[in-house]
């Protein structure tokens, strides 16, 4: 692989091989010769936090290539799931911009050779739009899994014989999606002692991250449970429960995981269930604790995405906030903030919005 190509797409296996061949150690990187690389690595993460996109600085190929694994190390060292998502997306956006300038064949080559996609040529026109390619729906669903706009839903695509018709620009966007997944997979929590020059850059990254945390929605949840801020879907589940309607498994799961996550004590939750229906208290306690991650495989479940609730018919009575969010917890944060503004001004120490890890 050419250095220029590797600098553009450093997350590809071939690019990683190029880096490995240099056999660089952490201490090597601490030497003044790599100042530029370290600075660019920190800059990548800072750009991700501040702008949501890493720029495509291609004036120095080696700096661009080597700074990527170091930036990945910075993000991994932070161990913040929210930063992981933001960084992976920002790097993927950079890729999307670079892909815009690539030839049709180059796109196809990355998709087929580097990602192993079943991508075929097409040339069909629908509604006056040329669809250059068709991609097997299996690859399409994976690479588009983080996209939430209606136009990417499979049901809104032309799907024939297993293949989804796509324009060239759409293929570039899907490569972005796949790149995001690949980069996210590389971000695994690590604990390492870094030599001073590297640690100094990481500290800078940390500072920028903390400054921007609240603005970017990576903040915690309100410290008290605010019933009035529940999204309409959760209210629907709650009202069903109170009326004694036999709730579907998904409804109960959505409600329980939501209430646990926003901080309702487990005992109150068990009381709530057993008081309104003939649930067996012991069984209910077990199930609630299972969802809370106290029992069983110790996974703490977070509530399902809006998309999931829609599939299962639980997304009801949407309002204006619903149009802006993809997750019921985001609704809860926004609504809680709104309610706090609407209340008569409180002295700062009485505000019920505090930082809390999620």
């Amino acid at each position: 692989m050419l250095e220029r190509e590797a600098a553009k797409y450093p997350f590809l296996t071939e690019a990683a091989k190029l880096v490995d061949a240099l056999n660089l150690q952490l201490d090597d990187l601490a030497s003044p010769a790599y100042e530029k690389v370290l600075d660019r690595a920190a800059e990548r993460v800072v750009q991700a936090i501040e702008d949501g996109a890493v720029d495509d600085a291609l004036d120095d190929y080696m700096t661009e290539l080597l700074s990527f694994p170091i930036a990945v190390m910075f993000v991994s060292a932070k161990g913040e799931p929210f930063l992981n998502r933001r960084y992976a997306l920002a790097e993927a956006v950079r890729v999307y911009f670079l892909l815009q300038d690539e030839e049709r064949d180059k796109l196809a080559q990355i998709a087929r050779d580097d990602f192993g996609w079943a991508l075929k040529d097409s040339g069909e026109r629908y509604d006056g739009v040329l669809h250059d390619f068709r991609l097997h729906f299996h690859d399409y669903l994976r690479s588009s899994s983080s996209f939430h706009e209606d136009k990417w839903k499979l049901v809104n695509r032309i799907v024939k014989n297993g293949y989804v018709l796509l324009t060239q620009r759409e293929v570039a966007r899907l490569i972005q999606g796949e790149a995001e997944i690949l980069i996210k997979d590389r971000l695994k929590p690590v604990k390492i002692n870094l030599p001073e020059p590297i640690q100094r850059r990481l500290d800078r990254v940390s500072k920028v991250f903390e400054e921007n945390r609240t603005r970017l929605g990576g903040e915690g949840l309100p410290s008290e449970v605010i019933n009035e801020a529940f999204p309409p879907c959760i209210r629907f589940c709650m009202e069903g429960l109170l009326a004694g309607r036999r709730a579907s498994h998904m409804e109960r799961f959505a409600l329980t995981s939501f209430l646990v996550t926003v901080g309702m004590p487990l005992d109150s939750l068990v009381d709530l269930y057993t008081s309104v229906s003939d649930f067996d208290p012991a069984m209910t306690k077990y199930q609630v604790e299972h969802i809370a991650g106290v029992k069983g495989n110790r996974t703490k479940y977070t509530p399902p995405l809006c998309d999931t609730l829609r599939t299962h018919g639980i997304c009801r009575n949407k309002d204006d906030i619903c149009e802006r969010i993809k997750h019921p917890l985001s609704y809860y944060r926004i609504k809680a903030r709104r309610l706090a503004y609407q209340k008569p001004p409180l002295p700062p120490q009485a505000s019920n919005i505090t930082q809390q890890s999620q």
Partner: protein
Amino acid sequence: MESDWGSPRFVAEQFHRWYQSNARAIPAPTEIKQREFAFLQFGGKTMFRHIGFPDELTFQRYLKDNGPAHSYHSSSYYQRPEADMAGKGWVGADLVFDIDADHFDLPCQHEHDTWKCKNCDEEGTGKHPEICKCGKAAFEEETWLCERCLQAAKHETQKLLDMLIQDLGFSPAGDLVVNFSGNRGYHVHVRSPRARDLDQSGRREVVDYILGTGLKAEYLGFNLRAKGGRSTLADEGWRGRAGRALYDYIASTPPEEIKALKLGRKITNLIVNERDKALTILEESHPSILLKAVDLSDDEKLMSDLSKLMEIAVKSQAADIDTVVTTDIHRLIRLPNTLHGKTGWQVQTIELDGLPDYDPMTSAIAFRSGEAKVYVRHAPKVRIAGAEYGPYTQEAVTVPMAVALFLLCKKGARIEP
């Protein structure tokens, strides 16, 4: 004398006997070593789970020895199927679909299904309301079935198969297995490498595709800015289906029903008073022409009215599948060709070509000889193997074994000594 409705001991004995002679004809699911199995016995409340079999013979011996009331296998493949959930090691799962007439709204349900409020004793036929007059929502239900429910389930299954084959490209010969569920519906299993490693979000998209959930007509030709000349009615996938759905809706919906939707004046006028014109446009021209024919300057209102229409219209083209079964990647599903403990019928694998003529109430009968005398507390009329039985109310009757077991499994009767 057994006083329990359903006489579980008698039924268990019949099941056991059936498995004695038929177990060896029940094929094991593919890749048996990677599957989890689960069983329920008559009268038992605990499911025996996390069972694994090394080969077909061991599997058949289990059925023969235990004669279970309900038998399941995992749609998933595991490294260690016998471990608990955390230790199983998920490697993939078939894509499975469940179509069950229980979820449909059908006129025949008023003839054979009843409900009763647990709180105020209010009762009725068909499906129970969301919430009873008394404000509570807990009901006792009695559900039976008839040829019409089964026919409706088959119709949905055929629509599903059409999408799996034509749109998603699965091979009818190699990838798809269709089973009668043994009760009110059908199960479709997709076994393909392209389905196996789909994650939950991918499966959710497939579910939305099959149900038409989240469909926006503007991406399927109904777009004022779209250029292009031809009608979409013959197009593949949802592009064609959306056009046909709207066509059928306009052609067959009574004017009062359309007016009740309270759409804009101009669009209502076009599809009610100028219905033939609207239909001709859909048949001969690009859907954008239909939108232009509404002649409304407020595009946003036009598109929101269109999406209201579409939401209703697409139901006729969608296949009514259970959303949870398909998105669950650890699902247990009925083991094909075993017996269903709530009907006494066989869960039966059907050749795809044979589906149009398949009649479960003739083909899925497991108990083909002998008869039994039962006391029936209540049962609607049923048609089994071409003959009609019932309706029965508090009477003793002698009927063929298949009918007796059906009435017993439905808990509508008990063995008369």
